[in-house]
């Protein structure tokens, strides 16, 4: 399983990457593998304000529905609507092109409170 070192991670198996005040969010390799074949994503409207931990959408595999939780507080500036046509791209590579939303965070330093790769890798180990 692949967890890029430059990303931050959450206990809900999402990744986050900051570029100034804009944070890109997706789900991790562990999350896509646990879900199995992803067939549907539901993403929020651009402009929606999210609190930390708020449900902002769902990812569905053939078998299960899984909520998406906002890792940080902020406003949705962009959603990856191209996933709608082929959500299985998340299974192939859950990073880079298969990001879910971009959030303009209200506190740019808050991302430092998320897990680094070492901590997250340990968390995933405990789930095996």
């Amino acid at each position, binding site marked *: 399983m692949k967890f890029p070192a430059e990303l931050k991670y959450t206990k809900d198996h999402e990744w986050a990457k900051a570029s100034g005040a804009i944070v890109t969010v997706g789900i991790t390799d562990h999350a896509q593998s646990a879900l*199995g074949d992803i067939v*549907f994503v*539901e993403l929020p409207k651009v402009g929606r304000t999210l609190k930390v931990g708020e449900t902002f959408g769902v990812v569905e595999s053939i*078998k299960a529905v899984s909520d998406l939780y906002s890792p940080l507080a902020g406003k949705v500036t962009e959603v990856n609507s191209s996933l709608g046509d082929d959500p299985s791209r998340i299974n192939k590579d859950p990073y880079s092109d298969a990001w879910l939303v971009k959030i303009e965070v209200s506190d740019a330093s808050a991302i430092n409170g998320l897990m680094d790769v070492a901590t997250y890798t340990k968390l995933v180990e405990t789930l095996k």
Partner: protein
Amino acid sequence: MLRRTALFDEHKHLGGRLIDFGGWELPVQYSGVMDEHTACRTAAGLFDVSHMGEVHVEGPKAEAFLNYLVTNNVSKCAIGQAQYTVMCHATGGIVDDLLIYKRAPERFLVVVNAANTTKDVAHIQKIEKEFRAKHSIQSAELHVTDESDKYTQIAIQGPKAAAILQKLTKIDLTPIKTYWFTEGAVLGVPAIIARTGYTGEDGFEIYVAWDQGPVIWRGLVDAGASDGLKPCGLGARDTLRLEMKYPLYGNELGDDTNPLEAGLGWVVKLDKEDFVGKAPIAAAKAAGLTRALVGIKLLERGIPRHGYGVFSSDGATALGEVTSGTQSPSTKESVAIAYVRLDQAKIGNRLTVDIRGQKVPAEVVATPFYKRPY
């Protein structure tokens, strides 16, 4: 402690992702639901279904007892034939759906759902007592025994299933018709070879002694490798049966479900002598059914799931509930099985399904959702 089938080590070896399924540790998937589903539809799928319960019903009164226990007419079942049926509570609600295999005039194998085995065996024993008292049956005339621990059951399903299984047995499989079976050796192991299944494909369910399971399983994995056979988990088993609108106990069927509204009228013989649940089922029929089990297809994006509400096309009136739903791996359409108000059950009728608060347009469609091309 979860129970394991004789094939547990095989599942681990093949990389199966194991889950708790009704108290059994079984693979939900190996390579992926979509991949396994497709393999079964286009080549062959191999399933461990050893968790199913097996009950022997034997003796001169076996057939009369079964006819009292279940809704279908067991007398119509010939030796070497399998019959699908349900057994009901005295209330008419469904205890379980099951298969009855007639092995000899006084020997029947009854196969029930894994998650229900304990409940079913208790129910069968209760009805046995009732039946014995009612007809003054001597103990030697009827034997009902739970043999669930003694069987490994393996299903091989798909267009190439017969050709693969044929490599492992001298019995000519060609003359075995759908819902018939034969008894003989597979890889030298005594087996019941039944042309039955839960996928909508041609295929077989093979019953062997519990400890012989691994021999048969490995034999089929090896024999089928060049034909594209893949081991399939519970995930693919569910999507395959859903595409056929085959009911699943706990979803479409339950203790409060009348078999007629579940679309199982074809296995309920109300012209038969008394059977458990007959009076309330007949009364419900006379009074008029209120709901029907239908196939639904979403007309916009979304996936209907078990428990989601079904509403009128304007979203204002509640009409029923989804019992099973998924995105069909074969057709890629979002499909569901649902109970809806009887007057809304016509094919072509427009409805909506409540998906997380949003009423998504849907339509009642003909089923099965998938038809095999051969």
